[in-house]
């Protein structure tokens, strides 16, 4: 079978003109006309300000946008010296944009960026989300400098977040990634990250690209492959994480991209995660992340109700996923009133582990397993919100840390479940 080509001819033609480069910034887009212009300008400013001498290129793989996204990216490349008088460019800074084949998918876009980085033999490559409205030129430096100086291979971000923002990350993705792979990477599913040339080639050689995880949830798969490959990791503080429009956020899709990809990764990496027990911190550059506390009115009731109805309605599905003790425990707490309800650390950790094991055994469709976790997660989120209602930033952090330790402690039970018969 002939190796499929990742880059289209059009992309390749543009890359020939860029030639060898030192730094690459990738902006994967799909209908991002509202924000992409500003983002690309900021990236340009960051590159000109902090990497004036390096050969840099901005690459925009587009998923077939129907708005003006690619034009806006190219348009940002026309003004060089004139518009921003305080920033002068020593070199030509290319911004190239081309559509990748196969329809919009984060994985395909990332793969295009990786292929371009590999082809241009860049030393450092960063990926920036076109929706990062809080992006500042400094982010570019903070992401790329540690890699470009050759000190680190993979740099993930740390953000300033509200204590109730990023619930999925705090209650599931971070603790579980940490428990499985033993590295305390706070944002394993990041919209901004940077990696070195050798790591980029390593990513490209991974097997993920032929699987679903090579299309969505690729970010977390890359993080995991950086961890399992033994690369040098760092975290860098960027700033305020842009708050995504809540109404457009789809929990099930997010679960698929994060939990689905995480569960999927357990299969090929079994020998690695099953033998490690604790976790190591990852070097953190810049100031530590802060938690903002301004009051936020949240409708917790809905989470609670959806958990209750989920446990009730999904009983036949949950039966095939969870062992009876866990299921009956869930049914017990689902019967509690809103005031008494508590989905504790240990029960939650056990639930996730049992889901992971069932995912491994594919007792029912794997996608259904991931979907069935969503209502349970809502219950956990409810408990998190209640517990931390009055908590300070430090207390929130401490609670998350405690949960992580619980996960690490319960990990041997997953290994047992994994190998045992159902």
């Amino acid at each position: 079978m002939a190796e499929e080509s990742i880059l289209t001819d059009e992309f390749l033609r543009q890359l020939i003109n860029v030639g060898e480069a030192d730094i690459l910034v990738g902006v994967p887009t799909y209908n991002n006309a509202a924000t992409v212009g500003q983002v690309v300008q900021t990236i340009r400013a960051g590159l000109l300000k902090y990497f004036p001498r390096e050969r840099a290129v901005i690459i925009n793989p587009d998923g077939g946008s129907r708005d003006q996204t690619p034009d806006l990216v190219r348009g940002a490349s026309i003004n060089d010296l004139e518009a921003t008088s305080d920033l002068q460019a020593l070199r030509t800074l290319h911004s190239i944009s081309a559509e990748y084949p196969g329809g919009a998918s984060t994985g395909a876009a990332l793969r295009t960026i990786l292929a371009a980085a590999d082809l241009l033999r860049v030393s450092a490559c960063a990926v920036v989300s076109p929706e990062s409205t809080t992006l500042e030129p400094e982010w570019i430096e903070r992401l790329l400098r540690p890699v470009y100086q050759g000190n680190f291979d993979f740099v993930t971000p740390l953000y300033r977040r509200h204590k109730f923002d990023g619930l999925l990350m705090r209650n599931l993705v971070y603790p579980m990634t940490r428990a499985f792979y033993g590295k305390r990477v706070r944002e394993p599913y990041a919209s901004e990250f940077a990696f070195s040339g050798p790591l980029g080639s390593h990513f490209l050689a991974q097997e993920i690209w032929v699987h679903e995880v090579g299309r969505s949830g690729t970010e977390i798969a890359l993080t995991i492959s950086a961890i399992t490959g033994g690369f040098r990791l760092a975290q860098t503080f960027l700033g305020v994480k842009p708050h995504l429009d809540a109404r457009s956020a789809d929990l099930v899709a997010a679960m698929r991209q994060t939990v689905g990809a995480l569960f999927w990764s357990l299969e090929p990496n079994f020998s690695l995660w099953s033998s490690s027990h604790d976790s190591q911190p990852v070097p953190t550059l810049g100031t530590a992340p802060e938690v903002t506390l301004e009051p936020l009115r949240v409708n917790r009731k809905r989470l609670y109700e959806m958990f209750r109805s989920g446990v009730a309605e999904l009983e036949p599905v949950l039966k095939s996923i969870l062992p009876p003790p866990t299921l009956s425990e869930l049914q017990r707490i689902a019967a509690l009133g809103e005031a008494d309800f508590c989905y504790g650390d240990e029960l939650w950790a056990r639930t996730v582990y049992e889901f992971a094991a069932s995912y491994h055994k594919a007792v029912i469709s794997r996608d259904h397993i991931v979907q069935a976790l969503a209502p349970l997660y809502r219950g956990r989120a409810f408990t998190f919100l209640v517990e931390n209602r009055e908590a300070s930033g430090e207390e929130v952090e401490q609670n998350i840390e405690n949960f992580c330790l619980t996960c690490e402690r319960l990990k041997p039970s997953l290994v047992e479940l994994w190998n045992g018969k159902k």
Partner: protein
Amino acid sequence: MREMIVSELTQATQELIREFARFLPRLMVMLIVVLVGWVIAYLVKWVLRSFLRLIRFDKLSEGAGATQLLNKAALPSSTELVSRFAFWTAWLGFILVGVSALGILGLQEYVTRFFVFLPRLLVALIFLFIGLLAASFFSRAALLWAVNTDMPSPRLLSSAARVLITVFTASAVFEELGLADSTMLLAFAIVLGAVMLGLAIAFGLGGQDLARRFLEARFAHERKEGKEKEDELSPL
């Protein structure tokens, strides 16, 4: 007269004996064919099973997800299933060949028709199997979707999906077996109509709430926008 009767009887007896004598070898042939057929079919089963084990067919089918499907349908392992199926097909074939060797008029025709009918039966069985699996899959998918989008009565929706797909499967199976005459069609139409009516009533009753919520959201959108924003939490 007596002599005539005796001679007739003798003749008849002789005829019978002759007939029997003529038939006996065929019976013997049939029995031998069936016996040999059993041996051959058993050998086929044994060789096939060994071969499938050698190539780790179970692992393959596990990778393809077939094992899980069989588990769910309470069927033995795929290797076993395939080898047993081969055994029965082969032996049944031999039995029928043996029966036709009896040379009984009309029976041969039925045997031929059976052999013609066999592939259609097989296809119908596969249809049934796939259909039942699809019904279970889609009913679960509907259930999960309904739960995760906070739809009312997820179980009802799930059951409706299962019934619909089962009915469609049944119709396809009958069609394949050539039994889909007008009565079948009528029966199907009645069942479908009943299901649809049931669904309509169910949705009508259960959907009241949903419809109200939808309309509220639609027409009171601007008024509630600020509140909604606080209500919803970004899952990420």
